[in-house]
């Protein structure tokens, strides 16, 4: 699997990321780091433990990290969740918004694992 294949299979554009970060090996390195980034775990924990502050912060972080790596859809989904949680209260929308993030994140992580394997 090439880096190009990876971005194609998650439905994002490698060109956009390359324009910003310039080097393929740099991008590959950051994809590896993305696997270790705790934001998604924190988000999950925030929901499980009903910890709104943790959930908000994690959603906010994930939004930034995702946009840096060109995961446009994940970034937008996290952004929607961030704004939903900003008043620091879970709403009826929170769970569905979280499911969207979960699905997008799972797909990306699976593909990164294949890429780096």
């Amino acid at each position: 699997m090439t880096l190009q294949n990876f971005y194609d299979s998650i439905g994002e554009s490698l060109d956009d990321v390359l324009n910003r970060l310039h080097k393929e090996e740099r991008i590959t390195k950051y994809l590896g780091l993305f696997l270790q980034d705790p934001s998604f775990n924190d988000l999950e924990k925030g929901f499980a433990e009903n910890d709104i502050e943790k959930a908000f912060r994690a959603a906010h972080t994930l939004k930034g990290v995702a946009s840096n790596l060109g995961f446009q859809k994940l970034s937008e989904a996290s952004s929607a969740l961030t704004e939903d949680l900003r008043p620091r209260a879970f709403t009826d929308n929170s769970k569905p918004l979280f499911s969207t993030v979960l699905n997008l994140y799972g797909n990306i992580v699976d593909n990164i694992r294949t890429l780096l394997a």
Partner: protein
Amino acid sequence: MDSSIRKKILIVDDVDLNRQLLAGLLEDYYDIIEAKDGNEALLILQEKTTDISLILLDMIMPGRDGMEVLKVMNENGWINEIPVVMISSETMPDIIRLAYKLGATDFISRPFDQVVVQTRVRNTILLYDKQRRLSELVAEQILEKTRNNSLLIAVLSHIVEFRNGESGMHILHINIITHLLLRTLIKKASQYKYLEKDIDIISTASTMHDIGKISIPDTILNKPGKFTPEEFNIMKQHAMNGALILDKVSFKKDEPLLKYAYEICRWHHERWDGRGYPDGLKGDEIPISAQVVSLADVYDALTSERCYKKAFPHKKAVDMIYNNECGSFNPILLECLRDVEDELPSEFNRFTWNHQVESDFSKIYEITSKDEEHPMYSQTFRQISYEHRKCNFFESLLDGIVFEYAYNPRMLKFRPDGAKKLGIPRIIADLDNAGKYPGFVDQENWEYIQKQFYSGSPDKTTFDIDADLTIDGKRTHCQISIQQIWNKTTDGKPIPVSAYGLARPKKGMEEK
């Protein structure tokens, strides 16, 4: 500034991936220091304020967030020295606006773009560098000008002194006493509060009080015995002559320095009861500058040896002045003299011409620090580093344990010898999170000391406390002398920012 030295950039972000991303884009050109939260960032800043050329700051972090960092940077004045570029993915206009208000220079939004990040960082550093060089230039010129002025005044005043066969000590003393009396006067009597900003100028002007003596013949000036009435009449002319000399200065007539010097020359021999010369002014008709210098002149004349008299001891001189044996003075000024009576002799010993340099320096600092467009830079730091060396030297002569306490974040620093005596590391960083009391003191004493650190006020910045410390393994009853430094928060509230202290075993109690 040597451009071959790589500049340091501090990246503050709680997300490892974000720090690495930014570091990756910048590490070819800069040295990167990373902090994973606001507290770590502040601790780094406290240690290396002058080393860091730029901060990339995330806004939302657990613990102390970006706003907190900006607030503390304001309190400590660092915000004027180091540009801060926000790197938050935060898009709320309120938060961004507040960050700009707190002094952030610029904003880089996500996703990061190599060209944007590198260009913003380079431009910001270049801009600050340019401003730094400009303000350095301005500061150097002001410093030189101030030095030249003081030097010329000192030379002028000394000409008279040396003809008088006296050392330069008289004008130095007049300067000190005038300063001290004025400081006391403005605190004591609210109607003189307006003089506060002119204290330095009046003190400088005081050194010119006798320039009129330049026109008095040597034979009279240096006559050891009593004057004949004719001689005394000639001698008396020095007051008016001094004023005339200054009046002939055809430029800068409105300069406060010249205005005060004129008053002082002409009227420093007037008396409160109206029986002085040359104009016989009475009471408040005599300008306050001349009243103060007159008292300073009499005090110093009494306590110094002159060609016609021996020196009186301090106590005797003060008694003679109180009893109106040497003139008659404004009762408020006599009260001021009484207030400073105990400080006077030690003030003479403490003062050296180095203080003059220091005061020049603080003047410049005052001028430039009020100028928000051109904050103080390298010139200040260079001066501070010289002062630092001086401090270190004097500290090394002190018998006791010297320490420094920072308030936000809380941190204790010791000299190596002190740390050794207490059996602790030189720096105890992050007292907030250390969660326990340092090893050299028990909990009760530590809590007491901590409380005392917050007990001063901007009006009372020095105080002593007693506490038990463990020195060289022995519990020792100590006196701790503390000097606090205060600053203002962004909303104008005074807060302590640091404290300097010296702990000494109390006499006779070392073996407790």
